[in-house]
């Protein structure tokens, strides 16, 4: 069975220079799409990936990452909306590159589908009341 998941990988300093993702492709035949990559001043690496492949191989690949010392989080939890602060104006709707925001035609409320979110962060500073929050 094939799976496709969006995950956040956090690399400790000692792993930043190792070709970890290469092993996912070579050993587990997983397909990846990099959504975001950065290395912080403390030299911790952060990688947001969409990972596709056979379920069994996917699990093995994740297992390999965990053993190597990579911390893994699922992406959907990472960008959240502070419902108290959101005014449902709509400033985020056309800014989001993946269409994760949609206006309910009846209520005119802005719906946030974090399954579509790739955590690019564009909505964070585009939101006038600063209701969008990113947690890595």
């Amino acid at each position, binding site marked *: 069975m094939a799976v496709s998941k969006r995950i956040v990988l956090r690399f400790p300093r000692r792993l930043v220079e190792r070709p970890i993702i290469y092993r996912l492709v070579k050993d587990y035949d997983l397909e990846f799409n990099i959504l975001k990559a950065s290395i912080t001043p403390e030299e911790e690496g952060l990688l947001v990936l969409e990972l596709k492949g056979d379920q069994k191989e996917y699990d093995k690949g994740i297992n390999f990452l965990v053993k190597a010392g990579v911390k893994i989080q699922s992406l959907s939890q990472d960008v959240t909306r502070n419902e108290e602060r959101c005014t449902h*104006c709509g400033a985020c*709707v056309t800014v989001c590159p993946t269409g994760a925001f949609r206006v309910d035609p009846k209520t*005119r409320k802005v719906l946030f589908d974090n399954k579509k979110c790739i955590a690019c962060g564009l909505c964070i500073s585009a939101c006038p009341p600063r209701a969008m929050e990113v947690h890595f």
Partner: protein
Amino acid sequence: MPKTIAEINEKIKEGKAVVFTAEEIIEVVKEKGVKKAAQEVDVVTTGTFGTMCSSGAYFNIGHSKPRIKLGGGRVYFNDVLVYTGLGAVDLFLGANALPDDDPRNRVHPGEFNYGGGHVIEELVAGKDIRLVATAYGTDCYPRKRLETWINIKDMNQATLFNIRNAYQNYNVAVNLSEKTLYTYMGILKPRLGNANYSSAGQLSPLFNDPYYKTIGIGTRIFLGGGTGFIAWQGTQHNPDVPRTDKGVPKMGAATLATIGDLKQMSPRWLIGTSVLGYGCSLTVGVGVPIPILSEEILEYTTVTDADILASVIDYSDTFPNLKPDILGEVSYAELKSGKIKVKGKEVPTASLSSYPRAVEIATILKDWIKSGKFTLTEPVEPLPGVESGVTIKSLEERPIEY
């Protein structure tokens, strides 16, 4: 038979007033017809919830012991600069004010995370604010420094005074250039990548009384979650603009100056706002009741999004350079469909003012009136109308010779 405001107030006090929101009234009139509905309906409530830059508040913080003359000195609330060109302890804080050390647009686009609007929101929320002041000292006001926590509940006056609110219509902003623009109308993507608008449309106060037949100076309103009043015409009030057959202005026209006691308002309806690459501001909730004094006034309140047109303006050239060109007119019904056509291209739309919150304001105001706790006022003077000659002028620069 036409009604009077006094008669409507009698019904409100008895808890018998018939009130609908400007959205509901559209269906009511469709069902009953204008004649019958005008007899039955007493008030139509409107609402709008958007970023309104020319908002601010003034304060009298009370005299310290010994006294300090802050007027002509320098005062900060949570590091945000407050205007001191007033009496000893009277201060004015504008929504766009910034801390001195805010980087502004030095790294473009600036984030503008905290400014005057945010201070107003925190004050209204009852939070303590850090006041830091220096003054020059006088014989009667000897003190030169003051640092203290202050709280809205301890102030003598804390008054919201917005010199321009509730614009009657507004531009639809697009970008014809090759680079992203960070404007007060939001992020505008290059090559007509998106179109942003900002009006509650059919619910917006001045669209429901397009000739200001009931809304005037002294009208009691919903302001920032409490009650307030229309104090005056707002700045840039410009009633004499092209209008549709039904009298709806096709571009920015009338504006309102509003005033009210900040102490009874709520942070749900006054929200500190950060506009990327532009500045800080305040998002304000305004709701205006319209007394149904005649069939004509009722008919105005049945305006729908399809009846209201707005001009599409290019913010890469036309707006910044104050050029007159418009790229076309679109209705709010089209804008709300999620896409409009500009220069033959389909452009996705987004709103900057919150329609769900506008509905909520109109509904709260309706409930206040129905429960008898909000009565209507007779305007003491009308707002300048189409014939008034009041208009918006641009600045004619006259070079200063040395």
